[in-house]
């Protein structure tokens, strides 16, 4: 069942198109990663899905309803980022209590246990937390709320690596125990590889790809070999990325489906896998040669 359905969604901010004719659907009880460069439209999309912002045109349906101004969607979804505006005179314990009052599926045990595990003090105020601690706390809220649709916008910002790993574990475990539809936008795709089921890649407000994680891992291959041979062989095919690998040697990344692997081996090229996060980076690359061009 489709929990989220977008069709030709466009969002204008001033004259700029933050989202451009975006269409996709997300099935119920999946964890989707929302990937893209800064400014790709991830936050915009999540805020529209969460009912905070209004789409300029197109159709957005979350739980079969338009999310903006919908009490139902607000009750069954939650948008978490690191910049929550909590009032400065409510302390953390009180905030959790409010969450419990508002969200019908709130799991108090989970909230309290995580709260103690990450060593929060009940009397602390939200504003006094460090950036990483704040993200942790906000994620706890997102987890404990157990909303049917949980939207995390770069939830691990500022967290140190150990905490991030722990949070992903908690996320996964709780998801398995209580399935729901989750979208996480993040820059750390490589860390999330084990967590995500699907990946939605955005660039300049447009959908670039929407694939299951397994397929994304196999999406591209890296070929290393002699430059002329490689370039000759790859003529006509889309080269996602290329860079010098040594004198007369070239490293190129292409879509796996575009080439034949046995033939590549026969030509003496080295085949290497391309991680999902690298694929995303290459696909959304701004220009040939990338940043190296600045130094040429």
């Amino acid at each position: 069942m489709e929990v989220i359905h977008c069709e030709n969604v466009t969002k204008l901010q001033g004259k700029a198109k933050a989202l451009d004719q975006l269409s996709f659907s997300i099935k119920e009880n999946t964890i989707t990663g929302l990937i893209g460069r800064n400014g790709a439209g991830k936050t915009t999309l999540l805020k529209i899905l969460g009912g905070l912002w209004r789409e300029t045109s197109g159709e957005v349906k979350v739980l079969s309803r338009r999310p903006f101004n919908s009490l139902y969607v607000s009750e069954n979804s939650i948008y978490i980022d690191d910049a929550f505006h909590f009032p400065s005179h409510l302390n953390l314990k009180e905030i959790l209590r409010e969450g419990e009052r508002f969200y019908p599926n709130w799991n108090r045990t989970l909230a309290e246990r995580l709260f103690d595990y990450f060593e929060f003090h009940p009397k602390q105020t939200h504003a006094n937390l460090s950036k990483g601690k704040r993200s942790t706390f906000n994620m706890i809220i997102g987890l404990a709320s157990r909303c049917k649709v949980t939207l995390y916008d770069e939830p691990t910002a500022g967290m140190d690596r150990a905490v991030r790993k722990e949070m992903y574990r908690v996320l996964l475990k709780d998801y398995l125990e209580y399935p729901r539809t989750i979208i996480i936008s993040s820059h750390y795709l490589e860390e999330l590889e084990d967590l995500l089921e699907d990946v939605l890649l955005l660039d300049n407000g447009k959908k670039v790809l929407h694939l299951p994680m397994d397929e994304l891992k196999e999406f591209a291959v890296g070929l290393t070999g002699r430059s002329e041979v490689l370039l000759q062989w790859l003529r006509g095919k889309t080269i996602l990325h290329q860079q010098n690998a040594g004198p007369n040697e070239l490293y190129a990344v292409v879509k796996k489906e575009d080439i034949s692997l046995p033939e590549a081996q026969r030509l003496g090229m080295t085949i290497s896998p391309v991680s999902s996060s690298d694929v995303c980076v290459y696909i959304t690359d701004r220009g040939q040669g990338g940043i190296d061009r600045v130094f040429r």
Partner: protein
Amino acid sequence: MSFAELGKAVRKQFFYKFKLFFGLFYSLIITQAIAIVFSFNGTGSISSGQIGQIHFYSADIVLVFTFGWAFISALQLTTKPFRDNEYLFVFNRLSSHLSNLLFLLALSFIGGLSAYLSGYLLKVAVYMFFDFQLIGTNDITSPAVVVAGIITIVLYIWMFASLGYMVGSLVQFQKVFAILIPSIIIGCLILVALSESEAIIRIGKFYFFESSFLLVFIKTTATVCLCFLISAVSTNHLEVRK
């Protein structure tokens, strides 16, 4: 969205806002304290040779200051920092407005009650600390009038609050109102002063000189509803967390 769901959400938001905006009571107390001090000046006096000077004391000034406080506080409810606080829990535009309306009513009730009681504080203080001979207290003896009066105070405060809310909402809707509304008000005042017309006095009389309680009730609640309607319509597309 059924009424039951809406009602539930409004209820939850109402209690949340009470905790959230508790700081408003701080400004209420300060405002009323200042007003009480001003009231020691008396709200009028008569003097003539034969009788010396007679000072009249009442808590009118406290009431008026409370009106101002209600207007400002309601206006602030519509500003970003206050609005952003509510998005993270369950809400939509309609429930937000309704819970604000009820919350402002609760504020008006507390502000009105304390304004009324401050009259006693004032009078006791005058009696104890001032050297004047107290001639009479003009105490209201009819409980019906007392109750009607207190309710009316609350309604007036609520009315000013809803005016502030409306102004704030209009400004959020189109920033230009922030300049437009004060200009219109000042322009009207100047026009009225120049033409020596009684327009403002008549508006004042419409609300404040009405001696039928029922009519006062109807007039104020109608004004409140109108203000909220305008607020709701103008902010319907308002986004949060820009």
